[in-house]
């Protein structure tokens, strides 16, 4: 699968993120060439979330560089969308939550109405357009944040543990949306500590622990036998710290 994706390759060189002298991300380098879904896998506290936010420009690099294909630093965020572990939803209706991002992008009223309807339909949320977003179930809330991301038509979607707080049924629903997103040719990078989820969704895996990148491999290869011993223990279901 050779990519025509304009934000690829993602080239990360020597990236570090240090807070109060403590390295959250330490000298991480990798290159992502292909579209599809890349899983940032690792135990809690591995630095997955921070790496994702560094890639999205929400956190400042302490050292190193991150470059997205042909994108200028200023336009990286505009061409991407990010979904957080705890859904950040405005105190408004589901439809108005989507309208908010479209307004920020300067979409006309007609355009907004069309995209809102299309996005809610896409996420199977058409019936709850007028419900207050924060009264929705956990699964509906996360589906709505993904529908909101979809409405922006980003080239890259960044997902931070999107199903960590969801039950199996809601998780399936959200994973279906993620697959549909990937099917539309978007690049997806997803942080997860859930091996089974990475197995279900990922095309390639970046395995992190204590802020360091320990392995970068195609998902199939990684799952059947990671070369890093710690990754092997993690896959085997051991508690890694």
């Amino acid at each position, binding site marked *: 699968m050779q990519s025509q994706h304009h934000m690829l390759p993602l080239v990360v060189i020597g990236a570090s993120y240090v807070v109060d002298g403590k390295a959250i991300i330490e000298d991480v380098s990798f290159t992502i060439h292909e579209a599809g879904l890349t899983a940032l896998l690792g135990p809690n506290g591995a630095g997955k979330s921070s790496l994702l936010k560094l890639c999205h420009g929400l956190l400042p690099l302490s050292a190193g560089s991150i470059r997205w294909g042909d994108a200028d630093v200023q336009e990286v*965020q505009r061409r991407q969308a990010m979904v957080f572990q705890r859904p950040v939803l405005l*105190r408004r209706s589901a439809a108005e939550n989507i309208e908010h*991002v479209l307004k920020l992008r300067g979409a006309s009223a007609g355009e907004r109405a069309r995209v809102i309807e299309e996005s809610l339909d896409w996420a199977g949320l058409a019936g709850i357009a007028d419900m207050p977003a*924060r009264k929705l179930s956990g699964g509906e809330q996360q589906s709505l944040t993904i529908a909101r991301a979809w409405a922006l038509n980003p080239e890259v979607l960044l997902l931070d543990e999107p199903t960590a707080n969801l039950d199996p049924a809601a998780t399936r629903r959200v994973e279906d949306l993620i697959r549909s997103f990937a099917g539309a040719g978007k690049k997806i990078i997803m942080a997860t500590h859930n091996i089974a989820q990475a197995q279900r969704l990922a095309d390639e895996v970046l395995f992190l622990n204590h802020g360091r990148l320990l392995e970068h491999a195609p998902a199939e290869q990684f799952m059947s036998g990671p070369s890093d011993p710690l990754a092997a223990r993690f896959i085997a279901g051991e508690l890694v710290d």
Partner: protein
Amino acid sequence: MNEFSNAFRTALQLLVEMDPGLFEIVLLSLRVSLSAVILAAVFALPLGAFVALTAFPGRRSVVILMNAMMSLPPVVVGLVIYLLLSRTGPLGVTGLLFTPTAMIIAQCVLVFPIIAALTRQTVFDLHEEYDEYLRSVGAGTWQKITTLLWDGRARLLTAILAGFGRAIAEVGAVIIVGGNILHSTRVMTTTIALETSKGDLGMALGLGIILVLIAVIVNTAVVTIGGGASRRTV
């Protein structure tokens, strides 16, 4: 006790008969306090949000000052505005002393810090939650402010009502800058002070009942809106 029941009877009579003198005073009170609160809110809401969102040198001092000004003594505010507006004062040429406008200015000064400080706190808390989302979708400062003000609307309305409660119940400032002139600057609180000192307790008590009623209505609104807001945020 007998005096009290007499006063109470007179008060009820004035209320039931909708005494024009009494209602003129009530209406002026509402006009002055509502104008003061609306004027204060128009400036205090954006300012509070701006202080919450923007890092600038001396922000801590500004926050402390805003919080401290919430308990400004009305008589002192009245005195300062009196000095500014009096014939020999810097704003004496405006001729505003002893007019309802002067009273609106005084109450606006009293209410402004309340709304600004509570807005800052509300927006600050909400921003903690929305910050990453707003940055991710590329919201500018003004877009952040409008988003946070709208989403904090329930708590902000509570702040505005709290400001109104302070304005309508306040006597020290309006009596100094308004002068308690009949048919011109006489409001409920100043009338109560005057009529009580004159011994006309019926009028004073009638207005007192209305003031308490307004306080009850405002606080019911605060509880209702506040309760609704906290349910929505769960």
